[in-house]
């Protein structure tokens, strides 16, 4: 029986969809069978970052309303031989055309076939959020080292704690700018984790590769040398129960000679 996890944040633009896609990919690379579900009705983009948007035939609203079987709507990502599937959101449906019970039913139908079901929640705390949370056994709260994102994450954790989920919510701090954290201009990891009072699942640095790869319809996790990719891979390993130490994000001091010979303009 698979575990279902919701990726949520409250605030928009902190990287929920990117996180969903990358954790899903990383788990698939570890040999797990993963289903990603996009619950952002009307603004679907999980399929876009994975480069699968041209293959959508049916979506989650079609499944919920009985127009299609769930297996007709699932898109297989051929790059990960039978390990990664996406259930896309509807693009032309009303935001409230999906009910929490319907999401739960779909999740329960898919649960026996997958190891992990990851639900990408929309921003906000309305219907879309409730839909996503209803189907989940646990939550991954994504935030960035900004006061606005942390404050929204706090609100979300409060709402999640009111529900009796199987696993307590866990935290990912995304888009960390190493130089700002080093000189104290952004909130640091301990400060955020302590404030929110939930377990830290992992950290991901802000990295050009994330945007570049998603523009190509790929996930950054596919590039093993990338720093953000390592962050996501570590998160996937921690989800699988491994104990992986937090990566060191302190930047190396760039010396005079290095700068002289590696001038980048």
């Amino acid at each position: 029986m698979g575990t279902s996890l919701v990726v949520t944040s409250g605030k928009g633009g902190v990287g929920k969809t990117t996180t969903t896609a990358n954790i899903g990919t990383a788990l698939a690379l570890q040999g797990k069978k993963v289903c990603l579900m996009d619950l952002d009705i009307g603004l679907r983009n999980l399929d876009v970052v994975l480069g699968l948007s041209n293959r959508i035939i049916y979506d989650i609203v079609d499944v919920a309303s009985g127009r299609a079987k769930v297996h007709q709507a699932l898109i297989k990502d051929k790059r990960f031989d039978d390990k990664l599937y996406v259930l896309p959101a509807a693009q032309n449906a009303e935001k409230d055309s999906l009910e929490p019970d319907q999401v739960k039913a779909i999740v329960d139908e898919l649960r026996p076939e997958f190891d992990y079901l990851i639900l990408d929640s929309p921003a906000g705390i309305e219907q879309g959020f409730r839909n996503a949370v209803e189907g989940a056994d646990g939550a991954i709260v994504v935030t960035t080292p900004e006061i606005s994102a942390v404050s929204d994450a706090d609100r979300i954790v409060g709402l999640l704690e009111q529900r009796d989920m199987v696993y307590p919510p866990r935290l990912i701090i995304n888009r960390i700018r190493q130089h700002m954290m080093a000189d104290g201009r952004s909130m640091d990891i301990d400060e955020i984790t302590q404030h929110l009072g939930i377990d830290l699942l992992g950290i991901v640095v802000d990295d050009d590769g994330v945007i570049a790869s998603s523009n190509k319809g790929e996930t950054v996790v596919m590039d093993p040398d990338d720093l953000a990719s390592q962050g996501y891979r570590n998160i996937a390993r921690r989800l699988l129960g491994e104990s992986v130490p937090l990566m060191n994000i302190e930047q190396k001091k760039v010396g005079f000679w290095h700068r002289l010979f590696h001038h980048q303009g």
Partner: protein
Amino acid sequence: MEAVTLKGRQSGFELQLASEASLDEITAALTTLLARVAGDTKDQEHVDFVLETGDRLLNEDQAKAVQTVFDTYPQFAIKTIHAAVAAVEPLRAEFAAKATHLVGGVLRSGQEADYSGDVLFLGDLHRGATLKTTGSIFVMGQVEGLLIAGTLGDQEAVIVGDISRAAQIRIADTLEIIDKNSYTAQTTSYIDDLHALVHGKVPALAKLRPKLFRKLEEM
């Protein structure tokens, strides 16, 4: 033991209704007693009685039965009915309204806790969270949200503790937006004689609000 005993007190006449006697016994005894008293008093002077019911609470019907006995004598009236006991429920509510609640845990953004009585807060109040009560608030945890004391307009309510990181405090109808740099770690915030929200040192509280320290005695 007589079912009804007449006593003269400094404040006036008192009728003690024995709590062991049944209501029938009491009304019977009361009828004969009032008849005797009415015979003894020659002039039609008006007399008020305090009814002392001891360990019994008269319900509405019982009080009415006693009142009917008095109705025969226009010169006699019941001033008050007083008992040595009280019903549990209203007492519980009164106690809850005056008790000091210990509040712990984390209040997160968007969450609101509402109490009646005083609150000793031993948790974390995050930015965007609200802690409010009808009485005073004593803070020992970390507070970054909104504190509201005296929600029903109690001017005597105070907020004590470290409010230097709070967003805002309100007492009754006054409020203050906290300027992060102008507070010492421990303060007492209260409404002064000029109806302004001001801050003092914690030890000053004993003189400012002596009643806070004598709560049990005054219950």
